[in-house]
């Protein structure tokens, strides 16, 4: 029996027990956000880099509620539409937090928030050359995933469906192909809407799942965070256990011999 404690995963030399990474956007307030992170069991949270409000410098900050010494902050480049903007954002993030493990996303258009893979690849190369360890949001394309890995991505993070859509994993075939081909961790980033979909990602063999809206926009975000934690663990166990083969017709579970 594989227990959860020994089933850790490693990205760029850092080992984590939780396979769930959660975002910190869209919550009602910092208290709810912190409680959801706690309930999710996540050891990594994504954060954005934005201008300080210089007219209200004493406003509460995320770091007052989620301690970066206990939870790994993964700075993202959400909202960046060019490689240059993303690189600039992460240079600032590294200075603000001192971390080199970052989440790169370079978006192609506002309507779908689909990644611009040409810019994403360019940014991955530059960041890797500057000593960053980029975990990269990407399309669910096994060739693009390999190219990112070759460019220096320390993890590839294909979308399951558009960011914030909650549509679930639309293409299980391509996600599985990425998992089979990758030498770095693969995490589904974006698209999960409910617990069963997180389990699907893990059953496909992904190393983890990254989500934000599915928890933050649930009626009870803290309970959904717990559901996601359990779903990720359940999906992981199911993957390791190896599912039964599918049959086209029934196969009785009780013996036929000895029927009265």
């Amino acid at each position, binding site marked *: 029996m594989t227990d959860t404690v020994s089933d850790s995963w490693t990205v760029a030399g850092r080992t984590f027990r939780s396979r769930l990474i959660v975002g910190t956007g869209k919550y009602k307030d910092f208290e709810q956000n912190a409680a959801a992170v706690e309930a999710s069991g996540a050891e990594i949270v994504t954060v954005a880099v934005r201008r300080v409000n210089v007219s209200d410098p004493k406003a509460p900050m995320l770091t007052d509620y989620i301690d970066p010494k206990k939870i790994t902050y993964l700075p993202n480049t959400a909202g960046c539409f060019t490689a240059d903007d993303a690189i600039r954002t992460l240079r600032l993030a590294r200075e603000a937090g001192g971390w080199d493990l970052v989440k790169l996303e370079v978006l192609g258009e506002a309507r779908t928030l689909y990644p611009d893979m040409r810019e994403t690849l360019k940014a991955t190369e530059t960041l890797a050359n500057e000593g960053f360890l980029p975990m990269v949001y990407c399309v669910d394309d096994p060739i693009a995933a390999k190219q990112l890995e070759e460019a220096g991505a320390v993890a590839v993070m294909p979308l399951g469906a558009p*960011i914030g859509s909650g549509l679930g994993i639309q293409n299980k075939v391509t996600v599985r192909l990425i998992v089979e081909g990758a030498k770095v961790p693969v995490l589904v980033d974006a698209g999960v809407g409910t617990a069963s979909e997180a389990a699907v990602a893990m059953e496909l063999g992904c190393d983890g799942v990254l*989500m934000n809206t599915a928890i933050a926009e649930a009626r009870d975000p803290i309970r959904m965070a717990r559901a996601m934690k359990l779903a990720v663990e359940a999906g992981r166990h199911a993957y390791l256990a190896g599912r039964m083969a599918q049959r086209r017709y029934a196969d009785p579970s009780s013996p036929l011999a000895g029927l009265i």
Partner: protein
Amino acid sequence: MAAEISLIVNGEPRRVAFGSSIADLVAGIGLDPKKVAVEHNGEIAPRSTLADVSLSEGDVLEIVHFVGGG
């Protein structure tokens, strides 16, 4: 009369005393320098050097921190 210089901080005009450093600016706004990062005319200003860099007329600064995001 103390001379002042004009800066652009996070897109807004701001005036500081002539000879101010970046650390003076950050403290003057009321921010904890350990929680922010500063870009000075497009270049990262390392936290360890904030007190050593004097500001000049027309300098453009971005002061950022971590906020919630996905």
